[in-house]
């Protein structure tokens, strides 16, 4: 979906997200829905535009996709941290899971402009859940697709193909976004190959602006202290090495202020 967003588009960087009110003025859905920005353009016929990939799964996203052209929404953004862009033209590997791959295409364009080599891996359970628009493919040197059922590309998971791709392309940095389980698996591969890994985490949010403290996850700070950290303003893009993975439903031992 494309939104005329005025100057908001000029400030958007790959990895940022927006939060949209859903359901109209009498909605019983009181919380905004967060969407990673797929692409942002600050000039065009309608001024700045922000593009989102919306999968109509829940009530809120179904309402959003049911809107007509020229309808208006209430959008706050751009929010959160963005993917750090290397100053040197390095070899970058972009890894996306399911519809979570959306922000990688804008990132690929920026990396290409910096002279980086860009390889991309997209994985999902079935072919229908791979999000890879045609124009996105133009900005990468190679695209590898994996599906768990083999209905498209290589049968298996993204982590099955990562080691050979890292070696072949001499990848120095991995960018990833998608489900938390996938991000954790990518981090394990990244550790073994000693690459840098920036990932966009997914945690359910109530506010998106840092006031509710619901979207936290345990992350080591610069001093190595584990703190429950907001994924909305200290994320969504985080250094994969600092995240304490697999800690949903429990506070990891040693966390600052743990009970």
């Amino acid at each position, binding site marked *: 979906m494309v939104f005329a967003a005025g100057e908001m588009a000029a400030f958007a960087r790959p990895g940022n997200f927006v939060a949209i*009110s859903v359901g109209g003025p009498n909605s*019983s*859905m*009181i*919380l*905004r829905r967060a969407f990673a920005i797929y692409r942002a353009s600050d000039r065009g016929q309608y001024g700045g535009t922000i593009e989102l990939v919306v999968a109509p799964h829940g009530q809120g996203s179904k309402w959003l996709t049911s809107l007509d052209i020229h309808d208006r929404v*209430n959008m*706050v953004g751009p929010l959160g941290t963005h993917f750090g862009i290397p100053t040197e033209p390095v070899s970058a590997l972009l890894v996306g899971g399911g519809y979570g791959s959306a922000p990688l295409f804008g990132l690929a364009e920026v990396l290409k402009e910096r002279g980086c080599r860009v390889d991309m891996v997209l994985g999902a359970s079935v072919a229908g859940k791979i999000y890879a628009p045609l124009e996105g493919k133009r900005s990468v040197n190679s695209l590898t697709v994996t599906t768990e059922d083999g209905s498209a590309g290589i049968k298996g998971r993204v982590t099955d193909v990562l080691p050979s791709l890292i070696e072949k392309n001499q990848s120095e940095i991995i960018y990833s976004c998608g489900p938390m389980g996938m991000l954790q698996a990518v981090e394990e591969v990244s550790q073994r190959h000693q690459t840098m890994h920036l990932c966009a985490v997914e*945690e*359910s*949010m*109530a*506010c998106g*602006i*840092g*006031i*509710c*403290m*619901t*979207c*936290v*996850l345990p992350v080591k700070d610069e001093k190595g202290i584990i*703190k*429950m950290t907001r994924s909305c*303003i200290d994320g969504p893009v985080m250094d994969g090495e600092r995240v304490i993975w697999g*800690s*949903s*439903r*429990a*506070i990891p031992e040693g*966390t*600052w*202020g*743990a*009970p």
Partner: protein
Amino acid sequence: MSQEFQAFDFRCKFGSKHFPYPIFTASGCASSGKELSQFFPLSEIGAVVTKSIAVKPRSGRATPRMAETPSGMLNSIGLQGPGIDQFLEDDIPWLMSNNARVIVSISGETVEEYASLARRLRTVQGLSGIEVNISCPNVENRGLVFSCDSVASRAVVESVRRNIGGELPIIVKLSPDVTDIVAIAREVVSAGADGLALINTLLGMAIDIDAMRPKLAGKTGGLSGPAIRPVAVRAVYQVHAAIPNTPILGMGGITSGRDALEFILAGASGVSIGTANFGNPTAPIKVKEELEQLLKERGFSSMSDAIGKAHDR
């Protein structure tokens, strides 16, 4: 003499302190103000009520901490925060330098912890009040919810009063999850409270029917949002009827000026905006502007004239 720019008389009073506007943030729904200040100047509201602070740093509870429910949400944050030392070092100076009036919300696990927090705050210059949160539902042991017990509530408020001195207003935040909220309210007022914050969240639960387990890692959570507004209005009405001279800070699902007016007519002297901030970070200003309009339409020249009006009719 120009009449056009004459400001509406929005003043309200808690204990010895006057506030220019009757709109406050609800504790836990504005952090320490910094994030919301990107959306409006904090001096435009009565005061920032900070997230309840504890003696020591707290990680809070595990995730998931939030579940949206019809016209509401459940949270089990568990009072995540940096502890009083870092709070006094970072948050208070920032709020003061941004011209915000500040009510510090405190939370302890024992009466002694509340006393120690009060001692720390006694020496802080420029505060507008203390909110004593004795009703957070997200503690490991529900037996620790002081406001469910009038003896425990009295003990906390007496110790805070003793340690804070006579000047700074104490506003005590109560839970609606009690049989008789009026009895608890009378107890804390006689123990030295200058005002009451009504209401904290209601204890609730939502279950994921696919995973077949509670949605929240902490199993139970506090229900907030418009879903609880009628419960909150009822609590304010009952308490104001029983102790009309004690100012009430009303809260629970306020998203608009009309919601705020309901609380004022029920007996609130001011209102707090909580969960609405999550969906609309400018909600406090929207509520203020709409409330002014509604009061003027009803012929009120000051907000305070409308307090408790629903009791006369």
